């Protein structure tokens, strides 16, 4: 039993660190550090930068343009990425639809879609959830009816993250309604969003951000060749993906960054006042969060080590999403608390680049602590709520 890294792994880490410190677009790191939202162009630019470096797809097989990294390398990469506050990969293309296409798609689909995903020429979004369906994916209503050489798609997808920027959407749709098990009528379709009948309507979240959308399909024609795999197997494909997508689900690297940043801030003194770090009660809470973080990190490392040695992820990996989101929300709460009255101003504008310094509110404080706290309420809801996660663990891990 040991948690040390090999010489090769350490060399890899040095390489990654060098890249982020010297080659990654500095203006994007600066925006991230100051919580300035990235533009669509920013996102495209840095993903293309990763492609140039050959690091666009840590999870993909090497022959398809992936990095061929071991689980430990992926962990080290994510850690370094978060350490400088570099944004995490947009997951919909490279982490989600990509693996489904190369695992279940046709040769033609692979050639048609994978290169653009890798180079970030197309922006993908995800069409799983529907209004009113929430975590109960199997009850979805969007229909795709076969009509000659195409499907006609009608329905609405909801909570579509960054759908306003997307070129393509991958969807779970209902292709049959006359089977006993609701899951078996579901298929996996790739849909071009730049066509008549597709409309995108913003959903503003509680922090005022337009981050998710409703995507409506009104008699949208989708060629049959955009079906991935077999008709009626969409549910299975989606589930396979979820089971393999454990790395990084805990958000350890990101929480590590947030917590160390918060700790650094507690040491600052505003106008000569005693810094928060002198407050034993607050520092106990930080320490407790650090314990949670370390536990989470080692639970993830246990999973990685298991996968690295060729085994399946152990049952402990099932807790990563719940524990990870709870920790993230706990850190948000601490940051909120640290800001006290200065968490109250709702001044999103002042985090946009070039905001005039003399108009800025809240010296020495992070007024966006509340926005992060509010926005992150979603992490325990989206992507299968924590209640659903607990149901799954109860059933599949504990056998209840």
């Amino acid at each position, binding site marked *: 039993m040991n948690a040390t890294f090999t010489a090769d792994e350490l060399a890899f880490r040095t390489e990654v660190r060098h890249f982020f410190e010297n080659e990654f677009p500095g203006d994007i790191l600066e925006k991230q550090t100051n919580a300035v939202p990235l533009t669509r162009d920013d996102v495209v630019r840095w993903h293309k930068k990763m492609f140039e470096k050959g690091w666009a797809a840590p999870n993909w097989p090497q022959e398809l343009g992936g990095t061929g990294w071991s689980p430990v390398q992926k962990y080290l990469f994510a850690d370094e990425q978060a350490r400088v506050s570099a944004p995490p990969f947009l997951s919909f293309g490279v982490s989600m639809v990509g693996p489904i296409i190369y695992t279940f798609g046709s040769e033609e689909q692979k050639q048609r879609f994978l290169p653009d995903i890798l180079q970030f020429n197309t922006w993908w979004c995800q069409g799983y959830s529907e209004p009113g369906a929430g975590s109960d994916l199997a009850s979805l209503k969007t229909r795709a009816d076969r009509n000659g050489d195409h499907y006609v798609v009608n329905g609405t997808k909801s*909570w579509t993250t960054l759908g306003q920027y997307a070129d393509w959407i991958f969807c779970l749709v209902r292709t049959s309604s006359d089977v006993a098990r609701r899951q078996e009528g579901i298929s996996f379709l790739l849909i071009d969003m730049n066509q008549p009948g597709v409309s995108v309507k913003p*959903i503003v979240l*509680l922090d005022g951000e337009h981050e998710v959308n409703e995507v409506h399909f009104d008699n949208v024609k989708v060629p049959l060749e955009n079906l991935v795999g077999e008709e009626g197997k969409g549910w299975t494909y989606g589930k396979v993906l979820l089971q393999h997508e454990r790395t990084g689900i805990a958000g350890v690297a990101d929480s590590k960054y947030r917590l160390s940043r918060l700790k650094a801030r507690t040491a600052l003194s505003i106008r000569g*006042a005693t810094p928060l770090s002198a407050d034993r009660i607050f520092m106990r809470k930080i320490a407790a969060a650090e314990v949670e973080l370390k536990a989470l990190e080692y639970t993830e490392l246990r999973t990685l080590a298991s996968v690295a040695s060729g085994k399946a992820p152990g049952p402990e990996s099932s807790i990563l999403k719940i524990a990870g989101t709870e920790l993230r929300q706990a850190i948000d709460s601490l940051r909120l608390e640290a800001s*006290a009255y200065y968490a109250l101003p709702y001044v999103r504008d002042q985090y946009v680049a070039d905001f005039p310094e003399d108009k800025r509110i809240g010296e020495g404080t992070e007024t966006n602590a509340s926005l992060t706290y*509010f926005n992150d309420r979603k992490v*325990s*809801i989206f992507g299968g709520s924590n209640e659903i996660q*607990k149901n799954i663990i109860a059933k599949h891990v504990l056998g209840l």
Partner: protein
Amino acid sequence: MDFSLNDVQSMLADSIEKFIANDYDFKARQKYSESKTGYSQDVWQTFSELGWTAVPFREEDGGFDGGPVEMTVVMERFGRGLIVEPYLANIVLAGGVLRRAANETQKSEWLSPIIAGELQATLAFVEPQARYDISNIATTAAQDGDRWSINGRKGYVLNGGNADLLIVPARTAGGQSDYEGITLFGIGSELAGVSFRDYQTIDGQRAAEIDFSDVTLSSDKVIGEVNKGYQSLQAAISDATLAVSAEAIGIMSVLTEKTIEYSKSRVQFGVPISSFQALQHRMVEMYTACEQSRSLMMWAAMAIADGNDESESALHALKYQIGTAGTRVGEEAVQIHGGMGVTWELDVAHYFKRLTAINLMFGNADWHLDRLAATTAS
């Protein structure tokens, strides 16, 4: 021992409930909140006409002679209605200082028009370095004969951008955190040297960061005695602590009720989510949190009304409870509402945000628990 409202209190409660039911739905609230001033002057006039702005003031000052119980009656209902009108800034904070410390001239110049809804006022008690310590005041006032000169910065001045009158505690003697040496000034917002950065707050209200740069005042703008301002300041903050706690209880109750209703209508896996036992138990805990908080509010209001020696502890206990139970209720309401709970569109998120804001004001849970622990130990 009697926990029911008397006739006058019941009438007050009814009139507010009726107003909210008829004239203040969520859509209206959002419209007022998003307007330039962040509230409706028409609504404010109605508050004044209905006598609500007069509640805490003495009859001889044109008031209703209400005490802490009446204040909780008003604020709990304002919480339920998610009212954005600047009651806290005008009536509780500025009014709380003026009714205690202002002289007759100042009362007729300032307090009467506040009650009439004609003058907007506020208390600028937050400084960037002070966190929840209201005696930590770096803003200075220097005397030169009959004139005073004010310099400094106040953050999070509620209603600051709308205010005609700013009540400003400034340091006139002593160390930066001393109770002695704080003097209260009534400063017209139009004066030279007063500059504003007005902003919206996370809970849909408005506040401002205000700089004072060599603002010159005559001595008749001193409210109360020179160097002796702490007591009135502290009393107004205590009033406000009780007021926002009552508001929070109104909000917590609404969130609990809305969550229960939502769970009955929301179908997942073919059944309403209200049938899931894990959620049922969590809603029972929300309900319990509301009722226990309400009990503490009653204790605090009655202890303060009595002037008994528990009144300080009761207020700490209440705000500590709001900070812990309120956070739990707010977060659970959002979580159980699922995706809908995190949208701007639904009122639930806005109740939650107001509750969050209240937890950040006048001392958070830890701050109040610390004060209780200090009393407990001694």
